[in-house]
């Protein structure tokens, strides 16, 4: 049945026409998924195959999203044997809409830093080109056709970065659009549960499924979900603001600049109005976000102490046990990030760093919102560089790849990454940022761009209807 070449809408139609059963879908999904997992290092835990007649859409969930009774490791040794006592609200909603999580996918430990797809348990290889980072198991699973959609989190751009690396669509919703209950996050004011799909419409299906108010999450906001597929055509001419500062971004790869520049020209030739604007905040956003995220992680991950859950390392007394447990349980990047957070929020540094960063946050948000008053969308590359070689490491507490993505997290705005082109057999992504709770227009515009760009998806290949 070639699930990897189907869109969710096609699968639904196939169920309606009784062309195949959920059992056949599961059988194919588990069989092909196992082979792809072995090839690319996608999953940390396979879930037992269910035996029901529900019309299911095979999906993956990043292993920092809880599923009741299932292992949830956050890709960290400290949580290696943790089994969640409840499910993430977003995954409960996804299940109601027919998404069946077949496996929990690999991610960077706790999702901290750049999405490299390298965890203490597994290394995810880019399905487009051997030897390069795939970003995460979730993105590579969607790209390779192991699942039709995936659910993951985005604190400063990780989900969009992995979407860009693997040549799929990734959507981070407006802060508050999707419940964060049951997401083991690290940066509570930045993290959102988002979705990955092989095309914009599949991503819209998945996002509509998990959106909605959760009375048990105080950051959840009750707003109508108005982007159920099929997506409408945009109502009129589309204008996008393109901040010229993208060309001066640190670490911008010439190949990415070339692909993005050509895409802008192509979009303009097809009637998309692209206005060059200035957004100085683009230069400041990533270090400010890293500073805030590290302090929030220092606080949020304080309860990983070997008492109520997780692995414990023996100590001579309680304090020593905390230190031994955390020092042994967390990996080097997490320890580096938490200590950075402790450093910049200490009594001596709080005013100069953490409080300053929160003031910058309002300043940056206001700049971004001012641009969005005149244009519906901001268009940027997703990541300044192509998927790096597997062995490349993150240089410090600030991720290298979140220069263009972090403004949406600071401002809590919806953003989508979609493939813009290919360079040297690796995908390059572009990003649209929309207005608060403007997921509907954002996804419509992304679908239009997708049509214009006609990116040859890895698994979709010759796409079915």
């Amino acid at each position, binding site marked *: 049945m070639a699930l990897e070449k189907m869109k969710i809408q096609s699968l639904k139609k196939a169920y309606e026409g009784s062309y195949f059963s959920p059992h056949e879908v599961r059988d194919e999904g588990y069989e092909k998924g196992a082979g792809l997992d072995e090839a690319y290092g996608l999953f940390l835990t396979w879930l037992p195959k269910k035996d029901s007649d529900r019309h299911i859409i095979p999906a993956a969930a990043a292993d920092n999203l809880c599923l009741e009774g299932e292992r949830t490791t956050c890709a960290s040794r400290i949580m290696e*044997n*943790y*089994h969640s*006592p409840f499910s993430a609200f977003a995954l409960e909603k996804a299940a109601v809409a027919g998404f069946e999580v077949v496996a929990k996918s690999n991610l960077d430990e706790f999702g901290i830093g750049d999405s490299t797809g390298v965890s203490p348990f597994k290394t995810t290889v880019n399905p487009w080109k051997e030897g390069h980072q795939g970003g995460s198991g979730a993105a590579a699973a969607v790209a390779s056709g192991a699942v039709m959609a995936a659910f993951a989190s985005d604190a400063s751009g990780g989900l969009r970065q992995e979407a860009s690396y693997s040549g799929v669509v990734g959507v981070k919703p407006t*802060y508050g659009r999707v419940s964060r209950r049951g997401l083991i996050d690290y940066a509570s*004011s930045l993290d959102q549960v988002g979705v990955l799909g092989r095309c914009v419409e599949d991503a819209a299906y998945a996002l509509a499924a998990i959106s909605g108010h959760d*009375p*048990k999450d105080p*950051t959840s906001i009750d707003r109508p979900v108005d982007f159920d597929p099929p997506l409408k055509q945009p109502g009129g001419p589309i204008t996008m603001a393109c901040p010229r500062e993208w060309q001066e971004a640190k670490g911008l790869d010439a190949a990415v600049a070339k692909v993005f520049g050509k895409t802008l020209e192509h979009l303009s030739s097809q009637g998309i109005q692209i206005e060059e604007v200035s957004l100085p905040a683009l*230069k400041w956003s990533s*270090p400010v976000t*890293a*500073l805030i995220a590290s302090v929030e992680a*220092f606080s949020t991950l*304080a309860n990983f*102490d070997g*008492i*109520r*859950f*997780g*692995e*414990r390392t*023996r100590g*001579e*007394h309680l*304090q*020593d046990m*905390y*230190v*031994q447990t*955390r*020092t042994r349980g*967390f990996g080097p990047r997490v*320890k*580096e990030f*938490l*200590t*950075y957070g*402790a*450093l*910049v929020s*200490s009594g001596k540094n709080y005013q100069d*760093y953490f409080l*300053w960063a*929160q*003031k*910058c*946050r*309002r*300043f940056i*948000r*206001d700049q971004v919102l001012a641009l969005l008053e005149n244009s519906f969308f901001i268009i940027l590359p997703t990541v300044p560089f192509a998927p790096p070689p597997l062995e490349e490491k993150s*240089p*410090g*507490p*600030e991720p290298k790849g979140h220069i263009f993505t972090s403004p949406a*997290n600071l*401002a*809590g*705005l919806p953003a989508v990454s979609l493939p813009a082109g290919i360079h040297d057999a690796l995908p390059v992504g572009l990003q649209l940022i929309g207005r608060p709770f403007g997921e509907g227009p954002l996804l419509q515009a992304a679908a239009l761009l997708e049509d214009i760009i006609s990116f040859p998806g890895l698994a979709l290949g010759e796409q079915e209807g």
Partner: protein
Amino acid sequence: MKITREELQAAAVDARLDFSAEETEPLRQKYQEALEKIQAVKEDMGPVDTPPLFYPQEVKNTYRNDRQEEPLPREKALANAPDTDSSCFHVPRIIEG
């Protein structure tokens, strides 16, 4: 701002982490570079006089309905703990020495 080894060690204590002597100096240098970059951003931005923004949406307090709900069952709450008896989490002794 110059980061000293003592400041780094104090931050590690706050984070309940321990770094070996070999780990400390490379880490100190990374933090030094990160904060020098922050200093450069500060100089580029100039004074920022806006109020801080701790959440992207202006989060309002929300209240649940005032009715009793079933709590997490005790056995589920204890199931992931490394050391328990039938009703409690066990911890090592608290007094040092």
